[in-house]
């Protein structure tokens, strides 16, 4: 399947990028690991691809006192290989290892994953669990959005036309656990969870069971199991199966928090 035709531009400045991104039928292109397959499959026909990989200031991993700031253009491989990030934010380091395969992780970006908001994706759930704050840039300046408010629905985020996700700041956690069930290594998850403990608080964000990450803040394992909403079925797994698997993951995760 060959992609339909589209125009392509690679802005050299943020100002230029905002302008291009605001045009009708424009789509941002970073790693392209989700966008380009969609184009090849003719599931998407944008007028213009705006390649933002040449923009400065959107990369880098910064360890701060209570949090880790990751630029939107950081690739999954860069995140995976960062010893600092692994030390300070092990949840995210563990999660990225589950994303597809090395060749895809070399191109795929944090920003791309968060902006796409695939319901089976790992990083949105990590962002929600950790209470990450996302920085969004536009010609109007910068604004900050909490992860929980950023993910709105199925492939739906708070990003407006002309806006570019610049990065995310992930507050650190005391303990964390990342579990995913997939039929084969690198597959999209059937169900998965990103869980953290901060003090006495537990935050467990599920992916693969709803249109967006499902957050639980349970006091006990039983409460956690009972508060799971009815999942959305997929091609191979009924809602009942997903619910069962989610509960199994909760049992496996609980003692690690």
């Amino acid at each position: 399947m060959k992609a339909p035709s589209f125009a392509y531009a690679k802005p050299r400045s943020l100002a230029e990028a905002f302008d291009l991104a605001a045009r009708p039928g424009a789509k941002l292109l970073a790693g392209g690991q989700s966008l380009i397959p969609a184009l090849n499959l003719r599931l998407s026909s944008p007028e213009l691809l705006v390649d933002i990989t040449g923009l400065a200031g959107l990369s880098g991993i910064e360890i701060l006192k209570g949090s880790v700031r990751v630029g939107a253009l950081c690739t999954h491989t860069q995140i995976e290989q960062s010893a600092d990030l692994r030390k300070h934010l092990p949840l995210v380091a563990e999660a990225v290892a589950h994303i597809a395969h090395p060749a895809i992780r070399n191109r795929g970006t944090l920003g791309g994953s968060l902006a796409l908001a695939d319901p089976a994706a790992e990083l949105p759930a990590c962002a929600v669990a950790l209470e990450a704050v996302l920085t969004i840039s536009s010609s109007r300046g910068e604004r900050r959005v909490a992860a929980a408010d950023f993910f709105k629905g199925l492939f739906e985020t708070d990003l407006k036309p002309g806006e570019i996700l610049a990065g995310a700041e992930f507050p650190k956690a005391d303990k964390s656990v990342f579990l995913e069930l997939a039929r084969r290594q690198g597959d999209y998850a059937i169900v998965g969870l990103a869980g953290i403990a901060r003090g006495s608080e537990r935050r467990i964000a599920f992916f693969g069971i709803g249109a967006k990450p499902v957050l639980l803040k349970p006091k006990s394992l039983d409460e956690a199991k009972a508060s799971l909403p009815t999942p959305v079925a997929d091609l191979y797994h009924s809602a009942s199966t997903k619910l069962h698997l989610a509960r199994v993951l909760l049992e496996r995760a609980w003692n690690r928090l």
Partner: protein
Amino acid sequence: MGKAELPLHAPGTQVDKGYIGQSVPRPNAQRLLQGRGAFTDDLRFPRLAHVAFFRSPYAHARIRKLSFENAVKSPGVIAVFDGPKVAEYCSPWVAVLAHLKGIKSPPQYAIAVDRACWQGEACAAVVAESRSQAEDAVQLIEAQWEELPVVVDMEESLRGDVVIHQDLKDNVCFKREHDTGGVDEVFASADVVVEETFHFGRHTGVCPEGRAIVADYNAAEHSLTVYHATQAPHMMQDIFSRHLNIPEANVRVIAKDIGGSYGIKVHVYADEMATAAISVILRRPVKFVADRLESFLSDIHAREHRARVRLACSKAGEILAFDLDDLTAIGPYSVYPRTSGIEGNQVVNLTGGPYKHQKYKARMHVVFTNKNVTCQYRAVGHPIAVALTEGIVDLAAQKLGMDPAEFRKINLVPDDAYPYTFPSGIKFEKLSHHKALDLLLRTMNYSQLRAEQSRLRNQKVYRGIGLAAMIEVTNPSPAFYGVGGARISAQDGATLRFEPTGMVTVMCSVTEQGQGTEGIFAQIAASAVGVSMDKVRVITGDTGVTPYGGGTWASRGAGIGGEAVLLAGRALRTNMLDVAAQILKLDKAELDIKDNNVINRLTSEPKLQLQELGRVAYFRPDTLPLDFQSELTVTRHYTPRQYGFTFTNGIQASLVEVDPDTGFVKLLKHWCVEDSGTVINPMLVDEQIRGGVVQGIGAALYEECLYGPDGQLLNGNMADYLVPMSGEMPDIVCAHIETPTLQSQLGAKGVGEAGTAGAPAAVMNAINDALAPLNARVTRMPFTPERILKALGKV
């Protein structure tokens, strides 16, 4: 008769086997390792046009109107064709064979005429300067459809409330009954009767290389050259000739490197026929490569069965009878020219295969549905027959409280019982079931695994061991297709040409898709002639160059093609010695050929280098006697005649661990003991078996073409259709027994499909063995976590 003329399996004689039996790396793998192969899509042609197809979005609909107005104006478009136009150049076909009594199917056109009968059927063709431009224009075709009732479910199809092809009166493509007699009586009086219904999910080949064809019509000569990723070039030559009305010898089919076929690429595809017709219409080369989405929609599917089986046995564990009711759903057409009735036919032939019971009854129906067409795919029917047989055998063993290996020992046909005729009518030359079972149990350390299983069960770790004994069809005679009227050759030929510098070129009608055909032919030719392997070159897959033959299918390459190469090699050696005798002025009986030299047969003293023989024979024949003519190119053919099919036997085992909380299955290890007669290259055979096993694992755990109630394929891409990848596959231990066939000098039987035939059964039995303490059992493939959780009562 000298040693050089004896069969390789001649008892009590040291036959010099040369390279035969050695694990020699394949010479033609070098170019593939460097990305310097020549797959059909790699080739370049002047004025090459590309075709993309407008495919039906509906599973069943009348084509009311097609409008090409906007499509023809799209940039780069050369032409747009509908079904009736292409039908002017390409006649339709009906896939029936005389020996499948009563089989019926409507005519199928290269591009659908009047009606689309499955989602994905090609209804128009766009030809453009590039594939991208062709796809752009496909989106501009406007169509008006009249939706027709869709038949998806096999039981529904059999009931026939909705008949897909009104002219045919019902949806039954083919049905068969078999009855030895006395079956009902046996079941009525048997101590133990077990019954089970197995379901097998429809799945498909997923060849790494998509189907590919470049058709190049030369109007000046009325000739057609087709570069075609096909397993059977001569078969396709005949078909292009007859359906495009071009004289046979004006059609040349060339199969270059092929990226996997497994049976998928041995069939006639409507879109490929359309591509050839379009080349004739446009008088220029036209290329079609099926992309991955198209592959899922239109490459043949296979193996959708519902099989109800009963087994009767005595309380001592002796199997007395099998009773089978099999229903299989194909697409809306039987596929040409081998028909879609063969898979079901095989299931009837092979059920119960390894065992010595005498009574057998079977009923089998093949029904049309509005899903993609189906046909022979690696191991054709064996995976079904072996799984339902070995599944019910395990159930019987379980009911009797008997170890499954013990139960099989009691019932496998004894190793000294041959030749043997099985209750379905098939004949075995000589098999080695007991030897194979013994070797398997020893190799896998069966008793130790059972002890470990028992220990782990106490810790709530659920491991399972599954066995699967099997028989396999190889080296078929004309009994498979020819007798039914198909112009499919069951014989093959090899031409060996001695070159002036002492090299040998082998041209053989069997083809290569990666299994190592060209490698083993080099081994055989070198051994037969007496040259070193580096002196041999092999050419296959070109109807303009090789003798006429059948190509690759039904595991026949080594046994049939190999035999032709061996015979030709030995004949060439004789002719070379004739020349040598003249040159040396010695008695031919004193000479032999070894390591690129003519030698003294007794002392091994080199007497003449082969390049010198070549120089004289080709450039200085004036120095030889007046009445002597060198004949240094030899052709021999071979047809298996004595047995309709040369059966092989094998037995596999799977070791799994099932997580009862998640339903996930971990494959810990797999074993395969196979008796395929003379093994020409153990290394090639091993990885063929392993590849087949992994394909079978795919069927057991991962692969299913999922259709919605409206006949829409729901998972036709590689993210949603799951194929086995390296992360989940076990190491697979292979062991061999060699019981040569006496029908040929080489003694080789086939082995390409063995792995696929037995693996689904072994894995299923292992899963059920693991679940046994939890009183759960699964019988619907693929065994997804959900199906296992359902069996466990957890969802």
